[in-house]
């Protein structure tokens, strides 16, 4: 019988290439166990690959972040919420969630994204041109990691890239753990307000961009609401901004640190997509964000979880579970890593995942081909890793070539 909470969550990473050390202990000794949360409450952590998938794909677990019992990872977060807050896609459950997600998902099919490939290639080449034309050392985060996904999502949505500094600044506040809740909500509100105004401008004569097409589509089926679309736009913009950027920076470090792995994708670009999957697994930059609230009793990994109890599905632990991945702590781009849960699992799985895959694939192939002498300009130990962010990554990555 599990009683006392041995660990406090969320847990910080102590090494950029590994989960918090306690994850292994939890996964091997008490895979479903109670942990203490910052507000003094507790939740279950679920740490094995199979159990994480169960939690994320069973309707007995709710994603309703606005529910008062939903596990809060930041102290004071629940108290700062406004009752009139727009419910975002990530906080919806069935039956509301499916139609809302499917309304926008047609924009993200493999076929649709494949049509964007030449334009993404152009953007990546343009940013590498700028990096090479600049002084050494250059900052890869500023010149490549951030602008590529940012330019791509702005073009897709129909958001003027000229405004990217505005939402970049606010996005940083949204995802930093140390941001006081009031400030986080102010930043969220600023981006949503910006989106609402932008969408209002598009209403009269909807342009052929994602937001414009959504206006037309949602009006046609009678479900158009400006604030709801602004919420969706906010999610896509924030999610499309920081996640891929951090994966570009971290993977670049990992490739440079593992030259034999890098040599494989340089020799055979057919291996790059597998390398992308392995990098996603290896870093799992979003981990405890996949929290849930149990709404009906269910047994997971032999442990009864009751309605009303919170659960943290530890994606990073699942992705290092030796039951699912052989030698899980080794970076091996040739392993079949596609069953990782770095994009989550189940109905809420990342809807931009194939855009992310394509961006990463193009960046890795292009960067290491065009800049074969790329090197880190700082010791790995000195690099400013985002130990304090909800999305792991790097603030800067100085490089020479």
């Amino acid at each position: 019988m599990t009683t006392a909470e041995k660990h406090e969550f969320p847990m910080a990473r102590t090494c950029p290439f590994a989960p918090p050390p306690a994850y292994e202990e939890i996964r091997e000794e008490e895979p479903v166990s109670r942990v203490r949360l910052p507000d003094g409450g507790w939740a279950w952590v679920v740490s094995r690959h199979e159990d994480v998938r169960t939690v994320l794909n069973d309707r007995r677990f709710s994603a309703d972040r606005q529910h008062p019992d939903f596990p809060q990872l930041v102290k004071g977060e629940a108290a700062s919420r406004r009752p009139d807050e727009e419910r975002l896609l990530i906080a919806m459950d069935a039956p509301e969630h499916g139609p809302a997600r499917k309304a926008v998902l047609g924009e993200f099919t493999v076929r649709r994204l494949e049509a964007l490939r030449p334009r993404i290639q152009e953007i990546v080449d343009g940013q590498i041109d700028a990096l090479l034309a600049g002084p050494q050392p250059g900052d890869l985060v500023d010149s490549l990691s951030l602008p590529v996904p940012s330019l791509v999502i702005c073009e897709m949505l129909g958001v003027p890239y000229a405004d990217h500094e505005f939402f970049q600044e606010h996005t940083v506040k949204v995802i930093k753990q140390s941001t006081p809740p009031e400030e986080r909500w102010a930043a969220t509100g600023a981006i949503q307000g910006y989106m609402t105004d932008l969408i209002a401008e598009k209403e009269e004569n909807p342009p052929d961009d994602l937001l414009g097409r959504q206006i037309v589509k949602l009006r046609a089926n009678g479900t158009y609401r400006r604030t709801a679309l602004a919420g969706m736009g906010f999610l896509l913009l924030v999610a499309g901004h920081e996640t891929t950027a951090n994966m570009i920076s971290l993977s670049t470090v990992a490739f440079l640190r593992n030259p034999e792995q890098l040599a494989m994708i340089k020799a055979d670009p057919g291996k790059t997509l597998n390398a992308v999957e392995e990098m996603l697994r290896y870093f799992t930059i979003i981990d405890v964000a996949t929290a849930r609230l149990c709404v009906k009793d269910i047994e997971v990994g032999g442990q009864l979880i009751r309605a009303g109890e919170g659960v943290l599905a530890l994606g990073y632990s699942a992705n290092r579970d030796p039951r699912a991945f052989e030698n899980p702590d080794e970076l091996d781009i040739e392993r079949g890593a596609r069953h990782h849960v770095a994009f989550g699992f189940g109905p809420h799985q990342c809807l931009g995942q194939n855009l992310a895959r394509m961006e990463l694939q193009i960046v890795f192939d292009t960067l290491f081909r065009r800049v074969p002498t790329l090197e880190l300009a700082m010791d790995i130990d000195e690099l400013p890793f985002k130990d304090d962010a909800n999305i792991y990554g790097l603030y800067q990555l100085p490089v020479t070539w």
Partner: protein
Amino acid sequence: MKIIADTDRCVGAGQCVLTEPELFDQSENDATVIVLNETPEGELVEKAREAMHVCPSQALSLEE
């Protein structure tokens, strides 16, 4: 062998299309799965199994 797809469960992740575009496509409207060939043979059988394994909503099953 027959591929069975549950489009209600499908979350439109497109993992099946990435696995084998000869067997799977996605609806342009809502990205849910369209099975192009329900009864694969030869090498495609293994691809169908892989697609079932990586599907993030467990929406695919195989009738042997």
